[in-house]
């Protein structure tokens, strides 16, 4: 379990996270949602260790991030897989080299074994015959799948995704969402997704954390988000007519 307790982060004396506390559980797709500037990305970067919070505790299965030594922190980072918004694949490397990269850096295994692992994860994300291609030769959806493959190649315990389906068509976005959820269940990992996409929030959000102005304003499941009366959540999630209608239909059916 990842536990966040009373997390504060500021930039140039402007507070961005103002005492966030929450938990993220194993085998669940956890989602962080909120308006632009609400602190989602900063929270994710604090969890990843890319930002150091001013105050608060982040604990990964009992290991408190700020209290870890360099070696333990490096070990923890090897247990984290990350899917960046734009994929963040290394342009100068082929798809195979991209996925091989963490293995080459950290796993002391023969090359043939590492290549087998690359092919296993590529198959897992349903990609074939792309090994020797460069990221620029793939579509956005395929790049995201490669990013997922790279994120899971080291068998991570924690998977972080920053807007994994931004810029994708609805069908490909659903494929990516389902893939992330399947992987979460299959590998029993803790998945945290930072998203703006209400469709994926409704589809795969088993736990949703709603941030507003750097504060954890609401938490619940994708079932509970339909029923909530929290004004800020309703205002944000049901801002489109389509989702308003979906909610009305859901509520009328459950009455």
């Amino acid at each position, binding site marked *: 379990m990842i536990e966040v307790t009373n997390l504060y982060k500021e930039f140039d004396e402007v507070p961005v996270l103002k005492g966030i506390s929450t938990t993220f559980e194993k085998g669940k797709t956890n989602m962080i949602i909120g308006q632009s500037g609400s602190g989602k990305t900063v929270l994710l970067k604090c969890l990843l260790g890319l930002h150091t919070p001013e105050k608060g505790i982040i604990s990964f299965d009992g290991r408190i991030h700020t209290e870890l030594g360099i070696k333990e922190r490096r070990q923890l980072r090897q247990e984290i897989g990350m899917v*960046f918004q734009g994929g963040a694949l290394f342009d100068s490397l082929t798809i195979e080299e991209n996925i091989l990269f963490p293995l080459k850096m950290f796993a002391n295994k023969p090359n043939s074994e590492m290549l087998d692992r690359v092919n296993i994860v590529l198959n897992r994300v349903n990609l074939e015959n792309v090994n020797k291609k460069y990221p620029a030769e793939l579509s956005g959806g395929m790049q995201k799948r490669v990013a997922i493959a790279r994120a899971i190649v080291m068998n991570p315990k924690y998977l972080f995704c920053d807007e994994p389906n931004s810029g994708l068509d609805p069908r490909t976005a659903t494929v990516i969402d389902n893939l992330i959820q399947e992987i979460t269940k299959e590998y029993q990992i803790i998945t945290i997704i930072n998203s703006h996409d209400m469709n994926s929030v409704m589809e795969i959000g088993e736990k949703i954390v709603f941030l507003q102005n750097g504060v954890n304003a609401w938490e619940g499941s994708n079932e509970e988000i339909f029923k909530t009366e929290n004004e800020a959540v309703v205002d944000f999630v049901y801002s489109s007519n389509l989702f308003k209608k979906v909610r009305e239909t859901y509520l009328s059916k459950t009455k």
Partner: protein
Amino acid sequence: MNYLKHIGKYFLMLRQVFRKPQKWSVFRELFFREVEDLGLKSLGIIMFISFFVGGVVAIQTAMNIDSPFIPKYLIGFATKRGIILEFAPTFMSIILAGKVGSYITSSMGTMRVTEQIDALEVMGINSLNYLVLPKILAALFFYPLLILLSMFLGIVGGYFAGIITDLFFSEDYIYGIQLDFDPYFIKYALTKTVVFAFVITTIPAYHGFYVKGGSLEVGRASTKAVVWTSIVIILLNYFLTQMILG
């Protein structure tokens, strides 16, 4: 005040750069890749410029010697001195600052804005060490060779200029380049080259690594990197000349 902040940040960056590489086999691969990107791919431009500028230096010297009392072998002598002491180490370094410096800043800046550097950090990799150290060592290893080649081609360019223009005899030119040859000048030039190679890789790396924003900022950072690298090279050239030859 802002300059001091940047200087401090630059030295803090160097502290991260000079750490033990995470994996030597990966480091070796990166080192040879950088030798190709930063060194071998600059061979063409360095050879072309050195040959023609060497020719121009010889022609200009010949045309400015009017007095019959000045021996013609001084053309070869002056061309050799000018090329070895200043043209090859300093001006070739400024050309490399433009070519290689902008490449380093733009490639690292693009990695920064497309989150590729964040991806390295998340994996637990010291991104500065991984990205910058191979560049520095590749430049320190290859640039002295490049500058030696530049010296040779500059002098050869001067020789051919004499043959083509008939402004001086090739025998005089060859006598001039052999006259009063001091190997210490080569040492001086290579010492400067090593210092400049360090500057050419680290200042653009600093500008690329800490870029914020998008493609426009990457472009601006590249320009800034080339300007600052050239300024630092010129200043260091002055101080090194004072220290070594003064």
